[in-house]
């Protein structure tokens, strides 16, 4: 009898048994779990994915707690367990299942899904949102790409036009795209800028140019700049 012809509940039971052996650092047979993942993802069987969820949820939860970035989020682990499994499901279903031809690769991919669920969350939200000050009518941004990348590319293109100097452009990128603080810029570009004060002086010059530009202000949805700097 081939693996593919075994009933699902037998495959799931053997997978659970072999997974338990693996957790106890005993020799284990990977074929049953691989078959379970294959049925869940390549064949799209909901019952098989339920079994995957039930067998591996504990590992995924432990991974969430293991990743130091999780503590920054202030969220419950459940959010990232579910987000990790969802990402895994959508990334490897159907023909994409062929990306991971063995069980260790599948589990490594699942683990990276935990990482990317948390890391992407941190990217999107921790930069500009102070969670303590969220009001009742705050509009929840989506986890998917809610920003208009076209708008971002237009804004960046305009900034490049306004900062023809290569050093200014690099500084603008460090500050506005990567969100680096002056001390981080000094640390990562030693020799380029002597200290934080020099960076602040250069940023001031760049900021003045950007704030006064009507094209950039329009792209950012702002009114015309004031005639003087009195509202700085």
């Amino acid at each position, binding site marked *: 009898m081939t693996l593919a012809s075994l009933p699902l509940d037998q495959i799931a039971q053997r997978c659970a048994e072999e997974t338990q052996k693996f957790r106890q650092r005993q020799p284990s047979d990977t074929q049953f779990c691989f078959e379970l993942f294959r049925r869940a993802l390549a064949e799209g069987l*909901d*019952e098989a994915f*339920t079994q995957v*969820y039930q067998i591996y949820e504990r590992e995924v*939860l*432990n991974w969430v707690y*293991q*990743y*130091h*970035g999780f503590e920054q989020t202030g969220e*419950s*682990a*459940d959010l990232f367990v*579910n*987000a990790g*499994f*969802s990402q895994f499901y*959508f990334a490897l279903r159907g023909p994409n299942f062929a990306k*991971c031809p063995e069980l260790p690769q599948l589990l*490594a*991919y699942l*683990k*990276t*899904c935990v990482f990317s669920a948390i*890391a*992407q*969350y941190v*990217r999107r939200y921790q930069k*500009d949102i102070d*969670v303590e000050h*969220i009001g009742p009518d*705050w509009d*929840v*941004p*989506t986890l998917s*790409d809610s*920003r208009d*990348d076209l708008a*971002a*590319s237009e804004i*960046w293109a305009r900034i490049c036009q306004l900062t023809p100097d290569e050093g200014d452009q690099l500084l603008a990128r*460090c500050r*506005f*795209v*990567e969100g680096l*603080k*002056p001390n981080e810029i000094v640390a*990562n570009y030693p020799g380029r800028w002597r200290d*934080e004060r020099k*960076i*602040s002086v250069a*940023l*001031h010059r760049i*900021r003045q140019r950007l*704030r006064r530009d009507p094209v950039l202000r329009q*792209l*950012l949805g702002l009114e015309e700049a004031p005639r003087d700097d*009195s*509202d*700085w």
Partner: protein
Amino acid sequence: MDCSFPPPLTTEQLSEATDGVAEPSIYDHLARCPSCAARLAAAQSFEQRLNRALYRWDCPTSQQLSEYYLGILSEPEAEAIRGHLAQCVRCGEEFASLRAFMTAEAPRAKVEPARPSVLPGRLQLGELIARLLPRTPTLALRGGGSSPIIAEAGEVQIILDAKPGAEGKVTLDGQVIAPDQDRWTGALVVVRQSGEVLQTATLDDLGGFRCKALPAATTELRLAPAKGPMIVVPDVDLSR
């Protein structure tokens, strides 16, 4: 509004305060002068708009970095990410963090962390918590059951119909209705009771799903599309 302690701070001084490198006297002035503090707030507001629009806009996603780490990208894709990593500090940091996470040994001790449930009324970023609408009382008809459960999350409606089945179990039929209906085709549904996953399902191209033989108990549903926030429907009482 005029400066309370003239002369007002210069734009250079405000820029230094924005960067956190100003002299202590500047921060003292800002703490005591509403006018200069308002000017600083305006400057920071402009900066925040720029950051929001541009923050890591052209960086690969965390998932792309992960696939690069696993070595499953095509060579052109991998080459593009290598090039980006060579010049992006944030992606370099994130990639180092990924590498450390993937190579860290799992703790040998059995770790059973506490599992917090969905806190009622708490807004979890990245998830929308659906609100259950009051159920409409229906007339008692022969063969009739209770009215469907309707939940709302933003512009999305989830209609749930629980029908009694054999051995006291319930068949749950669900329907998602959304302005962007296509986004919900193929979405993953996870059904939990008492924190345990009972079933998963996939939404069909009409936004429908079915879960059979569920215990008639309080149930949590999570609906995750490929893109966009997950919707959580907590505390669905299947026993009524």
